[in-house]
């Protein structure tokens, strides 16, 4: 008879199957570890670092570290949530995020996580990057101003749609999302509004055209309850948001 293996997450036992990451096991157990670039349907990317936890004393990304029996994992400590708040502030200042004018407001994982981490201001000076929008596609708008480089659209297009419409290009603070055409226009790619990639963006980059405020502010995904409640059940949140 085999015993279920467990590790401790903030002092409570979490069961896991061999091969599961700390994030996967926590999610399956209904426990929330803040995250932006992680999604249950795709392989881990490990870039946003919001899911940084302290496992046996070491800082690691929960989405990439394998669960080990008896591992002691700290998650929602003041120190870790403080680091998360700073990471969120970094994401807010490097792009152009104006929640009040964003169609994604209320359905946005970045915004919801920032609320949950108690982020009151961007803290750092804004970078105000110049990122023109791509409105070439008849059904979908790309507003790169809000891109957090999570690569979920890259993975969804490649792994679910088999298309490779998106890629991350550039280096350092000039890293940016590109589309798969010489013209640089989404309309010239084989992208379709029915693609998985069209409905995966956790922020407001990939948006359907001609649909504004279909669900009023106040009744959106993260309006009734915070991300730690809404996102603990492994649902495909981008589809609920539509």
């Amino acid at each position, binding site marked *: 008879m085999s015993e279920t293996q467990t590790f401790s997450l903030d002092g409570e036992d979490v069961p896991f199957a061999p091969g599961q990451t700390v994030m996967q096991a926590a999610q399956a157990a209904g426990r929330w570890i803040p995250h932006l670039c992680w999604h249950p349907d795709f392989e881990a990317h490990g870039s946003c*670092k919001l899911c940084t936890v302290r496992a046996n004393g070491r800082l690691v990304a929960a989405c990439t570290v394998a669960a080990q029996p008896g591992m002691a994992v700290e998650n929602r400590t003041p120190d870790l949530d403080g680091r998360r708040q700073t*990471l969120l502030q970094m*994401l807010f*200042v490097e792009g152009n995020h104006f929640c009040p004018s964003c169609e994604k407001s209320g359905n946005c994982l970045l915004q919801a996580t920032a609320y949950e981490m108690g982020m009151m201001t961007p803290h750092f000076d804004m970078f105000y990057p110049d990122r023109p929008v791509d409105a070439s596609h008849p059904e979908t708008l790309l507003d790169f101003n809000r891109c957090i480089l999570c690569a979920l659209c890259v993975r969804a297009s490649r792994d679910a749609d088999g298309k490779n419409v998106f890629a991350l290009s550039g280096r350092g603070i000039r890293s940016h999302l590109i589309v798969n055409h010489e013209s640089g226009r989404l309309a010239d790619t084989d992208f379709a509004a029915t693609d998985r990639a069209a409905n995966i963006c956790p922020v407001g980059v990939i948006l359907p055209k001609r649909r504004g405020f279909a669900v009023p502010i106040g009744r959106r995904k993260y309006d009734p309850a915070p991300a730690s409640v809404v996102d603990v059940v492994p649902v495909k949140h981008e589809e609920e948001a539509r």
Partner: protein
Amino acid sequence: MPSTLLNPILERHRRDGTRLMQILRETQETLGWLPPEVITAIAAAVGWPRARVQATAEFYSFFHTRPMGRYRILWSDNITDRMLGSTELMQSMCRKLWLEPGRVSEDGLVSVDTTSCTGMGDQGPALLVNYRAVTRMTPQRVDEIVELVRAGTPVLGWPEEYFQVEDNIRRSDVLLGHGLTPGAALAAALERGAPAMLDEVKAAGLRGRGGAGFPTGQKWAACRGAEADVRYVVCNADEGEPGTFKDRVLLTSHADLVFEGMTIAGLAVGASLGLLYLRGEYRHLLEPLETVLARRRAQKLLGAGILGRDFAFDIEIHLGAGAYICGEESALIESLEGKPGRPRIRPPFPVTHGYLGRPTTVNNVETLAAACLVAKHGGAWYAALGTRKSAGTKLLSVSGDCTRPGIYEYPFGVTVAQVLADCGAHEPLAVQVSGPSGVCLADHEFGRRIAFEDVPSAGAFMVFDHSRDLFETARNFAHFFAHESCGFCTPCRVGTALVARLMDKVAAGHGSPYDLEELFKLHRLMQGTSHCGLGNTACNPVFDTLEKFRPAYERRIKSLAFEPAFDLDAALSQARQMTGRDDAAAHLSNVA
């Protein structure tokens, strides 16, 4: 671009996407840049999505997706180049060419900009012209180059002495004085056989010379023990740590030793292909190294049936294209596969899942050269050199304020003071050991030793005398890391940019104690949450100098209260330019 130009390049690289870096480089060497339709054609030829080819082309500093002029001049911007006057020389060059730094001249003739350290710290100020290294720049040489550019003289026709690169070996020990003829160490290794060779490397206590100091024998054993049909040996010659140039000297004058070390590694781990990843700044070494490889093949030291035995091994050279991050072994492997150099998620480590997913041992140039000594003289002989925890010798690249900059080989355990005395440093204020990601030592620490157990070093040793301002050193390093961050993870991508901005704010006289606290806060965040060593160490120079040379920061701080970085008057500069006004009424004062 006509396919007659592109096709031979594609054919030479078998239309293989993993050769993308070489395809892009050779194409650019022909065309001067990588036009959009060429990227489309290359993507179609290698069968990759276009966006993926574009992503690689836009990641590396030395690839251009827009025209950068017939002459692309890049000044090495390490602090040691600046100490030798590179900033003023570059300004004078720009003035004489009627150019703004970073901009291409109106006629598309020339652009002048800065680049990260080109590995010529002992013979700077240095620059690259169309990716060829030029050393020892002087005001006179600036004038000559301006004339050559204006006259449109092809770079191949420029005076040869511009491209002269010296070894400057100042102190030799067992490695630089190895006295081995090509094949001698390899014959000894073949005589021992692979398992015994592995045991000797373990017994030697040989540790990685790239900085981390991982035991080489353990790495090779893990690679050999990994289940696989094919294994690879990679030589990391992406010597990007500012102030380091010892691998350049090994590859210039002891290339046989390096290639032989790779071959011995191949024998030990069971690999039949080795890849040497040469940094783009060392483009001038490509042809000489290819010549050495051809000779070794002719000498039966490479290829099938090496030295008459049942052992086959060959070596390919891959050239990088200006990305410090590729010194990180998993980023280097990504680059070898034709991708942007972003470090992978580890584990798995390269010894089990490396190049093309196969077990790969990635070793530093110097480590592989030292492996030849172990093969020839045995592990016990090697372990007796240096200290108990740091066997053997270490090459130091000495630059900065000293009379004899160059390469110094010492047994591990040498004191910093000894090196300073030998290189002719007068009244040194500080030494930056192992480059910006290393440690800044103040004079009370000069008794410390270069060794893994005390001050580990990848090889850089930059000396600063009392006339130097260590705040400016730290600011230079902060900009270096911001420029070289791969951009993958949030803390490093944004954090390095924030640190560079804060340092600029302090430099501009707008700093307050609050900003120094911010620097500490960013240091604490980036250290631990970053994806790889770059982000984890990026704040070291700021942290070190803040701790040890705080007055360098404090004398720039005028206000005890917070000061905004935003400068009201500077914000009006565009309006002044547009209206042609510069009178007193067109200015705002920030002073209340």
